[in-house]
């Protein structure tokens, strides 16, 4: 049996006006939790659960970092230490971890949350780990990247004291300079698309952590599909919650 039960919140931190972290025990029933995997979290104010990636994994605890978007995340933001939270997981396939290589981590907004877990898992095992992170406004969750990435570039859309602009510009520059074995990406859809496009163009392997509305989270309802190349012209609908949320940039068909 996979884990689906209540967990007790053992820590809660507000890290920005609308971004917070929740920590709970990593119980044995959850088994191994991979970066890029997620938990499906029940909210009193919504019918469906909300998928939230793991942001930090230790043998004893798991941290989620959450940005308030609507009703569900607003409910979660009101939970406090000691409260119970109903979750199931870990779900999805997560990142394929590349070892002893040069890797680049590219993230945007709350997409840094899963990248933090990824970074902590791959950093010690790779020759070099560069990072490019973009924010709309003020950045958050940067400490780990800034303190131990080989190179850490932060951009912001507004004039927040960081390089102004989008991740695509430094990305192109990085790819010109360095031959990366893998690019790990998570962020809003337009960013994923842009990064996938650039990586495909430069023929660099990239793993995208995708996002799509989900219902069951386990592969039963087929509402969360991603269009994946099949043969030269065909496609298959794969389930974001089972075969994803990680897909390789080279296999994804972005519609519209």
């Amino acid at each position, binding site marked *: 049996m996979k884990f689906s039960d209540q967990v007790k919140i053992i820590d809660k931190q507000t890290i920005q006006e609308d971004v917070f972290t929740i920590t709970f025990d990593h119980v044995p029933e959850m088994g191994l939790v991979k970066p890029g995997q997620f938990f499906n979290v029940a909210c009193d104010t919504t019918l469906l659960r909300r998928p939230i990636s793991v942001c930090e994994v230790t043998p004893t605890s798991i941290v989620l970092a959450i940005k308030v978007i609507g009703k569900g995340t607003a409910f979660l933001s009101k939970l406090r230490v000691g409260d119970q939270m109903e979750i199931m997981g870990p779900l999805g396939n997560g990142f394929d971890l590349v070892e002893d290589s040069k890797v680049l981590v590219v993230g945007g907004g709350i997409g840094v949350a899963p990248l933090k877990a990824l970074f902590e898992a791959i950093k010690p095992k790779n020759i070099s780990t560069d990072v490019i992170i973009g924010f709309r406004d003020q950045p958050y969750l940067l400490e780990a990247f800034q303190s131990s990435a080989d190179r850490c570039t932060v951009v912001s859309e507004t004039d927040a004291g960081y390089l102004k602009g989008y991740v695509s510009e430094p990305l192109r520059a990085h790819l010109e300079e360095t031959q990366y074995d893998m690019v790990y990406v998570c962020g809003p859809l337009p960013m994923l698309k842009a990064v996938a496009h650039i990586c495909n163009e430069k023929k660099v392997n990239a793993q995208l952590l995708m996002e*799509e*509305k*989900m219902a*069951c989270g386990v*592969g*039963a309802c087929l*509402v969360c599909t991603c269009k994946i190349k099949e043969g030269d012209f065909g496609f298959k609908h794969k389930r974001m919650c089972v075969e994803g949320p990680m897909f390789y940039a080279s296999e994804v068909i972005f*519609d519209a």
Partner: protein
Amino acid sequence: MHNLSVNLNGLILKNPITVASGTYGFGREYADYMDLNQLGAISVKGITLEPREGNGGIRIVETPMGMLNSVGLQNPGVHAFIKNEIPFLRQFDLKIIANINGNTIEEYCEMAEILSGEDVDSIELNISCPNVKNGGVAFGTDPNVVKEVVRRVRKSTTKHLIVKLSPNVTDIKPIAKIAEDEGADCISLINTVSGMGIDIHKRKMILERGVGGLSGPAIKPIAIKLVHDVYKTVKIPILGMGGIISGEDAIEFMLAGATAVAIGTGNFTDPKLPEKVLKGMYQYLETYKFENAHALVGNI
């Protein structure tokens, strides 16, 4: 110990809790969360003659206490179902209901014939699909078409036959009566209610086809009403569904006239829900000293 077993006119379930087509896949995924032996039956993901990739674009809109879906019958086709899924499901002590879908009456009949020789316990005729020959209007909303499709499928198979009705009709009673008269063994309802969602920021419909099927607690009062309408109209038993997320909801359906119930969208809220609903039903029977689940049916 209470007797929870119910008899759907020949299809005997060890308990009245089943899972609704399209919400439980072929059981594999949920087997990781719950002992499938607790289910009375599973109605599998709607199958078609040929494999289908389903609809493109966004397939779900969350709505207040409900959801619209537009999956478009993505499924591996009837032959893959027979080959891969029946053997898997046969490991468990539950009845297998094959939910079949066609573009034409001929397709329905062909699938019924194919499944007649296979190890399924019941065939559920989903007549909410758009009828290709009839300009895309759902089979289930035109009494004449319902008559024709049930009659011909009935002739194509001797299996237990469930006819699944659409709620999107002015009056469900004559349609239920036709299904009964044409030989359905059982009626299941409700399928999803037609709805639409618009993305006000992109100013376009969220679902590629515009219209999707509304399910979940939001539609429960509609479903209870329709189950009761059908209960008053036909003698064959009813498999009731629409928004069940608790034992109380399941009891409500049975009191309205359902002999068994199906959990659909509720599974998404909690992968152990069928187990919890079953427990709730036990408790209710205990509290009110009913000896068996059948005693609840239409008991208002």
